[in-house]
């Protein structure tokens, strides 16, 4: 169980204090697929970076099964939106996937586990390719394989499909759901895409912007396995969609007309050679 208690994050620049997260509280039971939804600049990534130990919260705590964690916790692994910058260009796909475990387990075992993960994400046959020889979708698959090879209890994903085209994105959503069904683990999935959040998750935590805070916690009661057409044609899908749109679009959520006060959108920082 993942417990987030009164989590606050404030950036201070000179005399100006910018409250990015204010009293975030939620609990994620084991095995749940949670989407964190919010407008851009709403602190979603900051929240996830705090969970991953990449950033220290200003106050509040994060606990796994009652144990308060600091730094990058053992059980968690983080998948970056910037897959092309996160993979090591000097290692082949196999070398990238073995990387997290190669000092922990014998070499032969590391190779076997890495190859199994490469198969699992649908990259069979590409183990000898360099990341920059793969398409964007394949690169993100590679990053997911590298994350899963550590057999994490928690998978933290920061808009992992945000920089992909629509078709590739749909394929990756379904791959992720398949993997999650085969080996259930807790997933915290940050996205600004309402449809993606509803389609994937058991539950959508909606963040409002400036300061980022939980404005609603929506349980998604759509049957699984989900289907790109049938699930999205479901009456309830449309209801959730309308509800979440209303939440995100109300001025208090800081949604539309969000004025670039927050951090710049991540996608803009992806280098030119990433987008293919």
């Amino acid at each position, binding site marked *: 169980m993942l417990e987030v208690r009164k989590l606050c994050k404030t950036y201070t620049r000179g005399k100006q204090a910018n409250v990015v997260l204010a009293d975030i509280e939620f609990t994620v039971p084991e095995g749940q697929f949670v989407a964190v939804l919010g407008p851009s600049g709403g602190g979603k990534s900051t929240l996830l970076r705090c969970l991953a130990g990449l950033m220290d919260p200003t106050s509040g705590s994060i606990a796994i099964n009652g144990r308060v964690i600091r730094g990058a916790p053992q059980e968690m692994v*983080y998948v970056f939106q910037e897959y092309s910058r996160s993979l090591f*260009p*000097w290692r082949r796909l196999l070398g990238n996937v073995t990387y997290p475990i190669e000092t922990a387990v014998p070499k032969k075992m590391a190779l076997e586990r890495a190859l199994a993960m490469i198969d699992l994400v649908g990259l069979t046959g590409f183990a000898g390719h360099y990341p920059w020889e793969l398409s964007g979708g394949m690169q993100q698959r590679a990053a997911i394989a590298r994350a899963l090879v550590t057999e994490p209890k928690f998978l933290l994903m920061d808009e992992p499909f945000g920089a992909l085209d629509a078709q590739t994105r749909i394929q990756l959503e379904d791959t992720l759901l398949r993997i999650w069904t085969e080996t259930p683990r807790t997933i915290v999935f940050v996205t600004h895409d309402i449809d993606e959040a509803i389609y994937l998750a058991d539950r959508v935590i909606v963040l409002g912007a400036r300061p980022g805070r939980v404005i609603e916690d929506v349980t998604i009661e759509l049957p699984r396995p989900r289907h790109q057409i049938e699930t999205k044609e479901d009456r309830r899908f449309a209801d959730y969609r309308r509800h979440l749109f209303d939440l995100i679009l109300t001025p208090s959520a800081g949604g539309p007309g969000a004025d670039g006060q927050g951090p710049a959108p991540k996608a803009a920082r992806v280098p030119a050679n990433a987008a293919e």
Partner: protein
Amino acid sequence: MTKLSRLTGLICLLAIVGLWEAVARLGWVTPQQLPAPSIIAIAGWSDIADGDMLGQVWLTAQHLVVSFTLAAVIGVPVGFALGRVRLLYAALEPMIEFLRPMPVIAILPIAVLILGLGNVMIDSVIAFGAGWVILLHAMDGARGIDPVLIETGKTFRVSRLRRFVTIILPAAAPQTFTGLRVGLGIAVIVTIVVELVSGFAGGLGDYIGTLEGALRTPEAYAGIGLVSLIGYALGQSLLLLEHRLMAWHRGYTRQ
């Protein structure tokens, strides 16, 4: 490089040498100004056959190897340290920017006073001349590493040592190698200059100076050509090593 572009380069080179030969043969320039390439080749060959030149080549090569190694062994680690430790960078960067433009020739007399007349002095001066560019490239390479790569290491909880070996080192390597190649070129130039002006060091620089003084222009040109050849050969070996160690980088940058 493709076969075609290699061939183009070779043809262009041959054309220019041919033009030069023609200009010299037609008497448009005096042999004292610019002897024909064939004359230079013959003069150079006879000097090499005499054994005169090879001893000088050996001396120059020794200075080059020792001083370049010294520059690399100091420049690369210091550059990495400056690039990764913010406090060190803040403390030393202004001083480096101040020391860096110091002309090597101007510090030569001071170096003689401190280190005396000998190989230690000569090699230190050459290393000083070549070291900055190596240091700065290593520093920039280490500083400019994509933070996402570093964070990737953090999310997998790798130790500091492993982070250095498996992330910082390979990520900074391409730029560091560029620095080494530029530094090697500078080392060649500074070696010749120091040999030429110091008057006691010997080597190809001294040899060229003496020949020029004696108006033996073809031999002097041959010496200069030999210096270029040595520089080219060393540069190419470094490039070969770079390609071998970093095959990934050529593909990554679509070369």
